[in-house]
């Protein structure tokens, strides 16, 4: 089996895998990175949402061969040992219910705020509608994104 190298949460990793192996299973089964969740396997629920070169993507439909040499960030790598401002906002709003979809929701929200630090409800809906929450935390997700955006704006910080 070929070996694929990529940069995962800032560290170079290598996996031996068939070229069609979805990155989700490389992360979960081969690398022990379990923050990205399996929810649908076909890219429609967003539970595995992570970042590829800073943009939100779905590891469950991304073959590992396609990320060779690229930067992949999962929820584990979002803020090192601390908490990202978006994670802090999530705690401040007590968003989570069962928590399962929340890593994916947070990764999608961070990707949104990198492009738009003052999102409207419509911007949030457009950016987040690929992420399903069965518990129904949507109203608080909107509130947490707005809270994070407000705090980032006030701090004059841009997310890159």
């Amino acid at each position, binding site marked *: 089996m070929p070996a694929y190298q990529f940069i995962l949460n800032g560290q170079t990793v290598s996996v031996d895998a068939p070229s069609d192996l979805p990155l989700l299973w490389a992360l979960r089964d*081969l690398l022990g990175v379990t923050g990205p969740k399996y929810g649908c*396997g076909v890219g429609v629920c967003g539970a595995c949402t992570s970042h590829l070169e800073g943009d939100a993507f779905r590891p469950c439909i991304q073959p590992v061969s396609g990320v060779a040499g690229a930067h992949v960030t999962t929820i584990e790598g979002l803020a090192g040992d601390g908490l990202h401002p978006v994670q802090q906002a999530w705690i401040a709003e007590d*968003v989570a219910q069962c928590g399962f979809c929340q890593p994916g929701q947070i990764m999608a929200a961070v990707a949104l705020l990198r492009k738009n630090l003052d999102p409207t409800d419509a911007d949030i*809906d457009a950016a987040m509608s690929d992420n399903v*929450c069965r518990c129904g935390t949507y*109203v608080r997700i909107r509130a947490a994104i707005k809270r994070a955006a407000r705090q980032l704006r006030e*701090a004059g910080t841009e997310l890159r």
Partner: protein
Amino acid sequence: MTQRLQKISRRSFLEGLNLAVGGLALGLFSADALAAEPAARKGGKKSGSPAIADGTPGLTPNAFVHVAPDGRVSIVCHRSEMGQGIRSSLPVLIADELGADMAHVRILQADGDKVYGDQNTDGSSSVRGIYDDMRRAGATARTMLVAVAAKRWKVKPEDCEARNHAVFHRDGKRSLGFGELANEAAKLPVPDPKSVKLRPRTELKNVGGPLPLLDAPAYVNGSAVFGADVTLPGMLVAMIARPPVVGGRVVKFDATKALAVPGVKRVVELPAPQKPYIYQQWGGVAVLAENTWAAMKGRAALDITWEHGENASYDSKQYREALAASVRAPGTVARNVGDVDKALAGAARVVEAEYYIPHLPHSAMEPLVALARVDGDTCEVWAPTQNPQDAQEVAGGILKIPPEKVKVHVTFLGGAFGRKSKADFIAEAVWLAREAGAPVRVQWAREDDMRHDYYHSVSMQRLSAGLDADGKVVAWRHRTAFPPIASTFSPASRPSPRDLKQGVTDLALAVPNVRAETCEAPAHVRIGWLRSVYNIFHAFSVNSFMDELAHARGVDSRDLRLELLGPPRVVTLAELGVRELDNYGQSFEQHPIDTGRMRRVVERVTALSRWDSRKQDGRALGLAAHKSFLSYAAVVASVVKDAAGRLRVDEAWVVVDAGTVINPDRVRSQMEGAVIFGMSIALHGEISMKDGAVEQSNFRDFKLVRIHEAPRKIHVEIVESDGPPGGIGEPGVPPVAPAIANAVFALTGTRVRELPLSRTLPVV
């Protein structure tokens, strides 16, 4: 791209919360917690709790509490966390009775063990059923700590008080920390929990206050361990091709191509289940592999010939017609007051309507998954289960070992909604682990989860009302047909009168002639309970019908509802016209059917939503109210039409009276979630059968409400109460769909009697 913002440490951030968090709730589901099997099990004093190792120093007066000599308090949560926030509720109640400071409390998740009593996290029962028992667990430990302090000071225990993690003497000069008292307290005999004094409500420091979600940090940083996040050395991952039709079986299969997939280790046929299915495995063919992808590819490469069995012609379109025929004939009487037939025959006007809701799946975001290891005559299971004791029984039954030889570790549940109280997925893992001689994780694909569910019953309701010349309702007949959950456990083919307690026989109606009947509805799939269960269709039909009657009479829907409810009173079984009624397992003395409480939630929700201006500016409000699981909930939904003519729910109000609540924010979040859950039922929810098999497969063809459909605002008001607690996880759901349907009628004039609404009208 890995640019970091200013680093805010977890600690400094959490100090800003209402509760400081010193290791609280963190790490207990982490990898090291799983590895931290009590090392001191052998020897030493026997612990009072299976969660605390024998020989551990300190006080363990019962299964729920441990006070260590260093002051650290451990509280065991014996119910499963599935999003309702139980780990942020029950342990707080125990800590409050104890007088512990939450900053020095850690929460342990219980394994399955009878010593905890009932652990089935179902029926919205985790607070309402055991509120006082949990308080006694904390109060017992407190009583013992106080006794030691009093003895040391040579004072009366009544002159001592436990608070802030210490015992204080009334003189205000002396105090001893819990840790300083723990070892000596452990030498005392444990008082009878019934004899210990509970604190007055005002002394429960955190109950009812602004409590945070204690597991929030683990949820947001990805460290919370769910079912599929546990791994054992040498573990195989199994994917199973299950019979597409319930009652079907494997005729033959060819595994050659599957075994050629790199990483596939074995292919195993599972035995076909026998009726009644209960929690048996589903049969089929399992592919065991080194990893999930290999198992998936191997399964796809299987060549299986199925025999579909007795349900091969099950067809949802035809079944709907059969249900309609069923409710158009008299059924088994479940409730009777006066003479409905005579009253209907003599009525000035009769209004009749039929309401249909299809099968629904649970569709938790975490598909089913279970890990099992079988070692000689012991077994260990890690699973997101609502009912670890049932899992012990099921695994023990398969392995022919006593249930207590099966250790069931409960992970976080990535949603459950009733599905994860069935142990079928655990049965599969246990069966395959024994067969493989290796630990096996059975992973269900999303398609498996959607196609092999214990479905919410498809249902038809027929309501008939007789109005006299003044428009007063003088007759009310409700016929209900749905395949009952009992069909999964026995040969039942129609609901029993007892099943109608969920919204039919317990419905307070100020109408002189009332009858309810259950009608034939045989099951062709496994039927199970889904969040709020039969209340879903009973609340939909009753609340829609009340709205229809109001329209027929030309009066306000709220006013008619209050008229049908009648004056504030406690409703007796005689008034309901039933000989017996199961009150969700609780006494009527503690939890009477109180129309005053129902009136209040209706009045509050209509006041908050400004019901008096319910139709203006292109939007309309709809109202529904329902009592279930001993709580009263009323919902108003606001529906608007967008530029493209599509309907959307833009705002919702919920008022709930659940008696005493421990964690108001978790109650609010449950109500917010109930609105979204109810919206999914109302707008999109449908599982349909063709040739015996489920037509939907994934979130592409089975839709759940997404963020762009969610209301801009969901307002929740909790009625202030110090009454006995009712349920919270389920009661918010039933009124949502009818509130939406009533709003749709008010806005468009179209009465939708069939869900999902998207079959009839365009929705966002």
